[in-house]
């Protein structure tokens, strides 16, 4: 299955840092995703509290199969499905992410310091996904909440079309921090949304909205929610909280939990 020419690096490249016994460094250069993920797994089960990986480039599924609150710091560009089914760890990406980050994520946190791709947080049920930069299409698609699990996604930049599509629960905050010639979100914003809430910093053209959402103004309760998550977002990215709050937010909520009741004749 794996290409042998890419798998020359030996598996025993995990080594414990002398400064912090709990930190393990891994060099991902030319490691296949299976080798890299096995190495991370091994390090965590060996007691590491922090795993730092250098030279990540394209390896998929990082963070898989871990239920511990371990911290995984990635330098480079992790591959698709980063933090898929994530259930506890905190993943920090010092670079850009690719597609499908936080796929069906259950708990934990993913922090991306750059941009990220399409279909982020698909079916996300819990945990937090913070992206500093811009994101692509179908981000937050089918996020949902269940009992006490309420997933939270904060995007620092802009988003592509179908943002929050099918959203069934959870909280999405879209900040649009940098001025661009593009609108903050693409077309079909919140299309099919039937649960949860999307906060947008600034305005959106009503023509961009999915037919299932309405724009509401912010209530004091919303302010509390925004304050909580944005403070954390600012801490993670070393941003000025006041500067983020200098522009008013709007709130998008679904008109109905059952928007398609009239689809069927009998």
């Amino acid at each position, binding site marked *: 299955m*794996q*290409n042998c*020419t*890419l798998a020359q690096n030996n598996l025993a490249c995990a080594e414990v840092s002398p400064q912090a016994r709990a930190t393990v460094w891994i060099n991902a250069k030319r490691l296949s*995703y299976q080798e890299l993920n096995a190495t991370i797994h091994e390090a965590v089960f060996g007691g590491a509290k922090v795993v730092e990986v250098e030279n990540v*480039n*394209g390896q*998929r599924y990082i963070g898989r199969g871990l239920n511990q609150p371990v911290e995984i710091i990635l330098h*480079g*560009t992790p*591959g*698709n499905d980063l933090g898929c089914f994530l259930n506890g760890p905190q993943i920090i990406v010092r670079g*850009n992410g*690719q*597609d499908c980050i936080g796929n069906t994520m259950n708990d934990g946190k993913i922090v991306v310091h750059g*941009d990220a*791709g*399409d279909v982020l947080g698909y079916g996300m049920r819990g945990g937090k996904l913070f992206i500093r930069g*811009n994101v*692509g*299409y179908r981000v937050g698609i089918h996020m949902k909440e269940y009992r006490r699990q309420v997933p939270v996604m904060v995007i620092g930049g802009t988003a*592509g*079309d*179908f943002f929050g599509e099918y959203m069934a629960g959870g909280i999405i905050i879209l900040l649009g921090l940098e001025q661009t010639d593009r609108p903050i979100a693409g*077309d079909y914003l919140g299309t099919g949304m039937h649960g949860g809430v999307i906060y947008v910093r600034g305005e959106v053209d009503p*023509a961009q909205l999915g037919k299932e959402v309405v724009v509401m103004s912010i209530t004091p309760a919303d302010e509390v929610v925004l304050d909580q998550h944005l403070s954390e977002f600012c801490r993670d990215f070393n941003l000025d909280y006041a500067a983020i709050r200098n522009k008013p937010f709007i709130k998008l909520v679904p008109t109905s939990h059952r928007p398609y009741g009239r689809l069927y004749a009998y």
Partner: protein
Amino acid sequence: MQGEIPRIPSGCSIVGIMDTKGRRFNGEEIIQAISVMHDRSNGLGGGFAAYGIYPEFKEHYAFHIMYEQEANRHQTEEYLKSKFMVDHAEMIPVDPQPDITDHPLLWRYFIRLKDEVQRDCKVDVADLVVEAVMHVNHRIPGAFIFSSGKNMGAFKGVGFPEDIGRFFRLEEYEGYLWTAHGRFPTNTPGWWAGAHPFVLLDWSVVHNGEISSYGINKRYLETFGYYCTLQTDTEVVTYTFDLLHRRHGLSLAEACQVMAPPFWKRIDRLNPVESRRQEELRMVYGSAMLNGPFSVIVGYSRGMLALNDRIKLRPMVCARDGHRVYMASEEAAIREVCPNPAQVWAARAGEPVIAELDEGVIL
């Protein structure tokens, strides 16, 4: 290798690298980039297109042809010689690889119009070349012209792209623009002519996704004399670019709008002039719309363009660093060969990213 194989849907990886100053570089880089996305293909198809590789024959059409048997070669060569001057013919040099087996006979020809035909200025050479490609691929069994542009060539076959690259000794070629493809066909074994890129004249297309509108795209193209003989959907993209841009004279941007048009909702909101133009494009070229998930990188002699389907169901990342432009299914592929590009961005649904040689660059 030929036969009534049904159309083969495929998932894939694609990448393109070009130097906007027209400086040439060898195939090593593109092999490195595509091999990062190894897991997106399954060993049943890999291929490359390279531009600027035949400077000694740059006014000739370079035909790369696959033959099942020697007899197919004789028949094809006879046909070519009846139509064109063949100034040079040779086997394409290859380096056997352990995982590359059962390859067809691989030949290349450098051809030009016969002098007496040349004098008849009414003849459009490109049309004659298209006609010849269609004739050989459609009518001569066991022969496939898989590359037919000037100063460029396609190299493709059944295998992982990195192995195909080594097989064709691409590190020995130098070009200013390279595209590559790793293939994951699902329904049938891959076959050599069915690997990407798909080339006609200097158009080359590598594609990730499946074109669900293939049935009508194919029938539409047939009315203009293009025959889809290679049993994959991607073929239609190549011919559609040729039809819309070269023959009909649409700009590349408009050709892209035909293939991945804006939604009516957006068209209705444009200013009246723009809106009318887009409406007309959709009315007239509805059958050329490519539907279903796709991302393609199209190479042509002056540049390359990336195009995604109109709801962006396939990925495409672009980057620029100095005079290099990169396009790939995954950012990792770019970073493998250019760790810190000055600019990285994701392509948008239905909006082509076009990279062309800098003004004044003469090849």
